[in-house]
Structure formats: structure tokens, C-alpha cells
């Protein structure tokens, strides 16, 4: 079942007098329970593509679908709701909020839903990623691998259908990177989440069900 889909997506940026075409008609889809790795040299449009899939940005031309629904013309507020309910993000630099504890960072996406029992769920997620003993630590008291696992728990708090990872192992050493990738694989298998990872890291290819190569804004299978 297709969770997110790009159809003939084009993205152009205006940079001064020049117009840069970052994506030149990309077709892409991610299915439930698969890990797709997007690789390519820098400047190839990987991040742009991930931004479109993650509904952080809209394509200049083409169509974006979530669960088969066309969300291309959604307003920013509607896109926010889609991100909130269906998409989890994991960043290279973790992007945890420094003043919040691990538990609070995990709660963050559902922070404004006071009706939900978010605290218990956050603690449960942290236990599942092996941080049950680090609940009240702030990011500065955690190692890089631990921070990335907090970020993964945060991405899962709203039970997303797809998890987008931008260089998830980029700031981690090889062994730590491997534990993160094991974690993502387990999520994929146990929860049936689609995982789209953008990377330079060769290590990630071993874990991928499918590799998409992006060169100059065009997908080369």
C-alpha cells in the first residue's frame, strides 16, 4: 500500500536572476513496511525531494499524494495537520530542544494536545528505544546515539505512517549508526512504517529494501 507518492514532481527555485531546477520530474513512492534509501551526490535534489515527501514544501509542478489523497494544493495549515498526524522526522543534527528533557522532547509534537495521555506514551517509546533510564536527561546529558534515539521516539509519538530520515547516521560513528539503523529496521518490521532515508552513508544501503539514485534532479533506477 502506497503511503506517500510524488508524481512528475518539479521544483524550481529562483536564485537572483537565475532559476534553478532542483527536481526535474520525479516519480517516487514509498510503501508500508519498506525502507527506501535515496542516495546521490550533494546538490542532486535529495533534500528537496525529502522536503516534498515530508510536506515541508510544495512542488512547482506535479502531484503529491498521502494515502492516495492529493495534497498538492493544501494550505500551509492543512499541510501542518498532515505532518502532525502522518509523518515523523529524524534529522542529521537530531534537532532536540535543549531546554526540554528526553521525555518532553518526545512529547513535543503532541504537546498541544492536552487531552491525550502523551506522557505515558512518550515514556513507553523511550523504553522501546532503550532509553528507559534516561527519561529526565536533557539532550546535553545524552550521547549522539542516545539523542538520535530520542529523536526517533519523537518521530513516533503521533503514530505516523511514514518516517523521513535526513542523514540519520551522518553525525554518528559507525557502531552507533548501526544501532540506529537496527532500530529503524525493527520499527519498519514491527509497526509497518514506511521509512525514507536520504544519505551519503554506504552502510545504509545494506539495510535498504530499495535504493533510489538521484542525479541532477532526475531519478536513475
Amino acid at each position, binding site marked *: 500500500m502506497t503511503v506517500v507518492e510524488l508524481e512528475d514532481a518539479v521544483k524550481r527555485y529562483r536564485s537572483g536572476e537565475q532559476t534553478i531546477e532542483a527536481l526535474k520530474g520525479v516519480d517516487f513512492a514509498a510503501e508500508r513496511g519498506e525502507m527506501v534509501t535515496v542516495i546521490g551526490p550533494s546538490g542532486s535534489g535529495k533534500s528537496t525531494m525529502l522536503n516534498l515527501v515530508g510536506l515541508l514544501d510544495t512542488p512547482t509542478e506535479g502531484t503529491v499524494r498521502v494515502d492516495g489523497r492529493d495534497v498538492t494544493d493544501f494550505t500551509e*495549515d492543512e499541510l501542518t495537520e498532515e505532518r502532525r498526524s502522518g509523518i515523523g522526522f529524524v534529522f542529521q543534527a537530531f534537532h532536540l530542544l535543549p531546554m526540554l528533557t528526553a521525555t518532553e522532547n518526545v512529547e513535543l*509534537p503532541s504537546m498541544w494536545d*492536552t487531552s491525550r495521555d502523551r506522557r505515558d506514551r512518550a515514556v513507553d517509546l523511550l523504553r522501546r528505544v532503550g532509553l528507559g533510564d534516561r527519561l529526565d536527561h536533557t539532550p546535553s546529558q545524552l550521547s549522539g546515539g542516545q539523542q538520535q534515539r530520542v529523536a526517533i521516539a519523537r518521530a513516533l509519538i503521533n503514530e505516523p505512517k511514514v518516517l523521513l530520515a535526513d542523514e540519520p547516521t551522518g553525525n554518528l560513528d559507525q557502531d552507533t549508526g548501526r544501532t540506529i539503523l537496527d532500530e529503524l529496521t525493527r520499527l519498519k518490521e514491527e509497526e509497518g512504517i514506511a521509512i525514507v532515508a536520504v544519505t551519503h552513508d554506504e552502510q545504509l544501503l545494506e539495510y535498504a529494501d530499495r535504493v533510489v539514485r538521484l542525479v541532477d534532479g532526475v531519478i536513475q533506477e
Partner: protein
Amino acid sequence: MSVTDLLWRFPSVQMAWRNLGRNRVRTALAALGIVIGVIAISSLGIAGVALQQQATTDLGSLTNEVSVSSGTDSTTDGVTDDQVEEIRSLAGDAAVVPQKSNATTLSARDGEEVFVSVTALTQASALYTVSAGDSPDRLESGALLTNSTAGQLGIELGDPVEYDGRLYRVRGLIESSGGFGGGGSELVVPLSALSEQEHYDTVTVVAADGDEAQAIADRLEARFNEGDEEVLSVTSFASTQESIDSFLNTLNLALLGIGSISLVVASVAILNVMLMSTIERRGEIGVLRAVGIRRGEVLRMILAEAAFLGVVGGVVGAAASLGVGLVIFQVLSGDPLLVFGWPSVRYLLLGFGFAVVASLLSGIYPAWKAANDPPVEALRG
């Protein structure tokens, strides 16, 4: 239970609290600006109130009196009986007390001499309150003497005083009154004592209150003085108080204006601090937006930070102003607790309200800017 747990139900406030805690020095300095602004507004306002209350107290009961004497265009050297009758008819229910005045020197048995002003009138009760003896409605015989003068001369109630060759028994001791023309030594005798003087020097009209006194004064002016002519000189202390009040109100407004400048400066400082901190946290706000935090929620979070600065600065500033107010009232009126009266407390609330409103206004632009930053741009930091 920590503050954070308490704020659990208010995520915007909780996040704001945490964010402000990240850079305590900056937060404290921003709040300090507000504190100073509130102190400026509140304590200047309270100073104005204290001045006004003190002025009213000093003017005392005189504000309901109208004083009439012969004017520069009068053909007689005083107020005539006919004019007194007309004044009576224009004064309505107010007491009209015609007086003749003079001055003399009273001497004690031991040779001590005191210079006193002499007032001759009939209706003593309307103008004088006594600390001992009585103040008769119709003073036909005997005299009243100021308390302090009696003390100086060793005169007690019932003792005689001599004026113009006649003896008057002191039947009442006058409290020394404050206000205009008061405080001096005064001997009050029956009108018969100055019978050789044909006209009255002064006619005092005692009205129920300042407004009525002013109305009577206006009627007298209209009746006796046409155009620039001044047949009778009409002085109302009500108008004096009115002009003092209006002057003090103007002064108060000017003081508040100066005070609010400092609050404006403080809110510009808050605007700066909020703008800086949202720019610094641009990437973080991008993350918030990416994980599905709504624009309105980001807006509320940053407005809550600004409001926090305003509330904390406002509370501390109001408390400090209360301290300043206690000192001001102690110095001006000797009763520091008067600061808890509504006129002063009003300025504390005003200062606090201004602080919160100014901070919120300063927070609007940074909050709006942060909330509407496209997530992709913000994530790049």
C-alpha cells in the same frame, strides 16, 4: 510540584517558561526594563495623587466659603447693609456672615503683649468652631479668642479681655484653623464693638459644598459687577481649589507622560530581545513546525514569553512602586498607609496593565514572524 508540572495544561506557557529559563540574564534584563517603566509610571502617578490629597487637606473647609469685600469701583469704603441684604437673597440657604474688622494689642497682667486681628460679627457659629466654651449663633456679648493667644496671655474661659475701652468675657476658645488667612491670633467680638464703622469689611458666605459656593460666587459676580467693573470683590476658594486641582491634574498627566516614555523604551527592548531570540531559535522553530506544531501554537508560545516578561516585570515593578508610594505618602502626609487608597492603587494596576500590554504588543511582530517562517527555510537555520 514544579512550575512546569503546574503549567502542563498550558503548553504555550510551559514552553515559554522553559525558553525564558535558557538565558536567565537576558530574561532578567528585559524584565528589569519593564520593572523600571512600571516604577516610573506608578510612582509618578502616586506622587501626583499624594500631592493632590495633600493640597485638598490643606485647603480644608475653606473651599465651601465665598468671601465678599468692597471692590475697586465701589463708591463706599465697605459692603453696605443693602448689599448684604442682596447677597442674602442671592445666597439662598447658605449662611451669610457680614464682618467688620480691625486690629489691636492685647496685654496680659504680666505685661506680655499680643497683636491680634479683631473681627466683629453676629453669627459666630457659622465661621468658628471652638475647643472650649461655645460659638453662639448670635454673638451679642462676650468674645471668642484663639486658643494659642489665650495661652500666651494666660487668659482662661470666663476671663475678661479689654477692647476699645470695653470689657468682654471670653466665652469660647477658637481652634487655630489651617488654610488661607488662618493660623493668626484673632479676637471675635459682637458687631456692636465696631459700631462706629458704618460698612462691613467682609461678608463671608458659607455654602454646603464647593460647587454651591462656586454657584453663589458666580451669581454675586453677575449681580454686582458688570463687565470689567468691580463693585464687590468676590473670592471663592472653590475656584482656587478647582484651579489647583486642574493644575495638579495637568502635572499628573505630564508626569505619567514622562513615565510612559520609559515603558515605551522598555517595550522596544523587549521587542529587540524577542526578535533576537526568535532569530537565534529559527532552526528550532523550524523543527517545531516540521513535527506538526501549528502556526497558531508557535505564535502563542512566543506571545506567552513576551507576556511572561510583562507579568513578571509588572508584578515586581508594582511591588517596588508600592514601596516608593509608602515613602512618598510618609513624606508628604505622614500617613504611609494612604497609599492603599483606590486613587494610588489605581496607578499600580495601570502600571501593571501597561507593562503586560506593552510586552504583548512587542511580542506580536517576533511571534508573527516566527510563526509564518516557511518550515523549509527555518530548518536551514
